[in-house]
């Protein structure tokens, strides 16, 4: 699981509400003074709960759409 597939966090938009940290099913996030950081990136399952819960759209878990390779 590569690091570039982690949700991206815009710390400038973060309001430190901790919803992402407390609701992460894999406990992959921790709140710091700057905002949330992935303390256990390997365990992130890309469920996108953090993106969904973030009230300020500071977390993006984007999807790339492709056709199945032939």
């Amino acid at each position: 699981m590569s690091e570039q597939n982690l949700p991206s966090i815009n710390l400038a938009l973060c309001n430190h509400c901790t919803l992402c940290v407390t609701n992460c099913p894999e406990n992959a996030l921790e709140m710091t003074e700057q905002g949330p950081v992935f303390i256990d990136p390997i365990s992130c399952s890309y469920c996108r709960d953090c993106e969904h819960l973030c009230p300020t759209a500071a977390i993006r878990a984007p999807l790339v759409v492709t056709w199945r390779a032939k």
Partner: protein
Amino acid sequence: MEIETINQIAIFSSLDSETRLAIAQRAFTRRLPAGFTLLTEGMPAESCYFIVTGEVRALRMNTDGRVQVLARFSAGDPINIISLLTEEKTNRATIEVLSPTSVLILQTADFDFLISNYTDFSNLILRQLAARLSKITDLAADLSLYAVRARLARFLIELADFTPSPSGWTQDEIAAHIGTVRDVVGRLLRDFESAGLILRQRGQIILLDRDHLSEIAQD
């Protein structure tokens, strides 16, 4: 600024060389990192922007404090023009940079000068506003003519057929683009997956059945 930068922006290609020179004399460029907040909703509108390279998204805060993604803009797209043309002159949305972006900046006084003195520039701005209005009209027509399931199928095919965006699309952004909410997009993606039309993997939606998806897109 260099006239070459002006020539890099496709929508300026229709302008007279004199107009392009007038823009070059007044505009300046800025490179913005991913995650940078270019504009904040409700703040005084001081400039408009034209994207040279990169991608940004527009966000707006609901009355309950939640942020909603409205749209995405990329190379050639103007930003904040409507804010400069309204009476209040405040930013209509927050603009966040998605991937490293270069923008050409025109301050209010320079924008007003160009609008007042260069007919081809004001015509260009009118065409841009008409294009935005036309998009909204298309969306309104789509909303009344096609079910959200059809709109999602059509958008997925469109995304897969063309060069993928380097910053990808979140469910919120897909929802904003097709005129629905993310929960509906999530439910429909689950339905598509159950029906064997798509496969969802970490950060990826893989389309499996073009014929069936195309059929749904016409429903």
